[in-house]
């Protein structure tokens, strides 16, 4: 009798626990679903333009804005995204989720290939091989005999590409080098006005650099670096350096003092201790700084627009800008999109590769 009563209690208790477990699982699902919904909603404003860019780059013809491919693409992809989301909330294990997503996206890709595939082409990427890709258009303009309207002479996109690469790459090298040394010094040595110089450095980064446009133009002009890539590089270095120093200082702060002293007693000179022991501890910081400065240089627009004039010194940003300008007069959205895609590929690749290090930066940087 007593035994039975005890058993019944146990069953009751078990039911109670099951109920609680079910409730917690339900809550977790709701949370997951809301999170996914939020992420999707938040990314739509960014994703749609990129999507538009990609689709047009690979599909648009000469005939202005063309939505023949855009809409069907959306019809195919949006359900796939929604299904992915729903499946994420339904799937119990990671494995299940993966299998489901695999299925959804295989089907989507097949459908996409069948319905959209035939309309995709690389014609818009002709600017990669033919600098004078708007020759045909120029003829039309000439035929209409539009007086006073001149078509921009485009350099090869590769000229712009190498120019951008030089500006971004050179400023990256200089900033990483200078910021590492300066960050180390500030982190390790006491000197007068250390605190205030740090604060001043941060303030410098807080001001909008656009206000410096005219003064910088004048300085660059006076020292004879107008319309040189080197001048632009100097400007970018000057603008990016303070914050980079600050970030590197944070990383150096996190390197224990003892390992440096240990290296000194092990027989290293101060310089050897720096290169062999301290610097390897902050490579993540250097990579993070490098990526940010590179992308900053790659994207730079205002200063190159102001400081560079001849078209053989165009950077990718100027190239893209002028292609777009031309297009406003009634040409090729396809080429504009294709140039855009070409322009963002390096940034995209760099971010993807360096993601791991960028995520660490917030950690190293905050310690500053």
């Amino acid at each position, binding site marked *: 009798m007593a035994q039975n009563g005890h058993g019944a209690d146990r069953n009751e208790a078990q039911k109670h626990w099951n109920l609680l477990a079910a409730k917690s699982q339900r809550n977790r699902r709701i949370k997951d679903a809301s999170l996914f919904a939020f992420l999707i909603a938040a990314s739509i404003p960014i994703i749609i333009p990129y999507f538009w860019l990609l689709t047009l780059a690979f599909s648009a013809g000469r005939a202005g804005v063309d939505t023949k491919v855009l809409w069907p693409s959306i019809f195919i992809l949006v359900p796939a995204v929604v299904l992915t989301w729903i499946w994420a909330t339904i799937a119990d294990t990671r494995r299940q989720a993966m299998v489901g997503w695999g299925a959804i996206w295989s089907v989507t890709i097949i459908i996409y290939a069948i319905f959209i595939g035939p309309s995709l082409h690389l014609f818009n990427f002709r600017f990669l091989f033919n600098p004078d890709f708007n020759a045909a258009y120029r003829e039309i303009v000439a035929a209409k005999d539009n007086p006073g309207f001149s078509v921009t002479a485009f350099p090869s996109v590769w000229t712009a590409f190498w120019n951008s690469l030089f500006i971004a790459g050179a400023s990256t090298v200089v900033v990483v080098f200078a910021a590492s040394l300066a960050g180390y010094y500030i982190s390790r040595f006491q000197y007068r006005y250390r605190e205030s110089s740090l604060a001043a450095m941060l303030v410098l980064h807080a001001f909008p650099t656009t206000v410096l446009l005219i003064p910088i133009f004048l300085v660059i002009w006076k020292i004879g670096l107008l319309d040189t890539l080197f001048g632009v590089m100097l400007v970018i270095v000057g603008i990016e350096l303070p914050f980079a120093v600050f970030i590197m200082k944070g990383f150096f702060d996190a390197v224990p003092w003892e390992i440096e002293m240990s*290296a000194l*007693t*092990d027989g290293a000179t101060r310089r050897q201790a720096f290169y062999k022991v301290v610097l390897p501890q902050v490579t993540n910081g250097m990579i993070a700084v490098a990526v940010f400065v590179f992308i900053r240089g790659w994207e730079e627009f205002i200063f190159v627009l102001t400081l560079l004039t001849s078209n053989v010194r165009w950077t990718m940003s100027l190239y893209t800008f002028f292609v777009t300008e031309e297009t406003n007069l009634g040409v090729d959205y396809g080429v504009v999109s294709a140039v855009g895609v070409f322009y963002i590929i390096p940034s995209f690749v760099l971010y993807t590769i360096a993601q791991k290090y960028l995520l660490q930066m917030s950690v190293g940087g905050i310690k500053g």
Partner: protein
Amino acid sequence: MATIEFKRISKKFGDETVIPDMNLKISDGEFVALLGPSGCGKSTTLFMLAGIYLPSGGELLFDDARVNEVEARDRNVGIVFQSYALYPHMTVSKNIAFPLRFQKTPESEIGRRVKEAAELVQVSELLDRRPEQLSGGQQQRVALARALVKNPALLLLDEPLSNLDATLRLAMRTEIKSLQERLRVTTVLVTHDQVEATTMADRIVCMCDGKIEQIGTPEDLYRRPASKFVAGFVGSPPINLFEGTVANGIVEFGDARLEITGDAGSSVAVGLRPEHLYFADSGIPATIVQHEPMGREILYVCETPLGLVRILETAAAASQSIGTSTHFRFETENTLAFDASSEKLIPRVRIRVPEK
């Protein structure tokens, strides 16, 4: 191998004097412990020896030659930091080889010596790992191997055992001690743990606020502590200290009185070690308020006319329960007396339980 001498060494950080005036001689092959509470300047002293800090004044001599300005890398000193300070981006074998890289040692010899050093501290199987893949004890051994690989003239250990668990600490204590005896390298160990100092070192330098309180063998520090501070710092459980006034061969502590022999001043601090006290049928009355079993022994805390007294008794001798009223006594030869104002030991003064 080297003899070391501190001649009127002082060290200031800015305006703050950490070490006012230090004199110390360490002979070749000796194992010396710097013992003192946190912040008393032990690490500072060690870093001056290593060449990391420049002394602010005085002379530091290695083998009678002044080395004040000699850089760390030229001193042939091996150091183990409290945090071990292994190089995180190098494997264990690269870590150990690091000091040899600056000595133009041929590659084949580097390999051989790294292996030897690793065997010495038993980390041969770990040579390909990185520091983060090692336990605290293993990291400690690697740090020791790195300090020893270049056959240093002087080995410096900054609280090398403080990050280890109790068992490992005991094992490493023995190991470091026997290693030092085998290699006969002059060694300075920094510690705030008196047990560590007394068990490992040939001589102990007891420091307080940057000043040396006493230099002596572990036995000296225990039997003849030069000051109240040393008496309180060395010995576990800590010594009982009572201040009283002296008149006509009697020390008075409020209601209680003890007899005193010898040439004491007007007021003294009496030191009685818990292990020298024992329960008896007569003597000073005591009521037990607490007891802490410590294995073979039990530590009793008793309320007495002198104040709270710690008494260490073997567990077998008497099992007294809390609240018991009893008496305690002590042997006269083990008692200590310190001058109350200067806190220095008063030699040849003994205390006795008065006979009724």
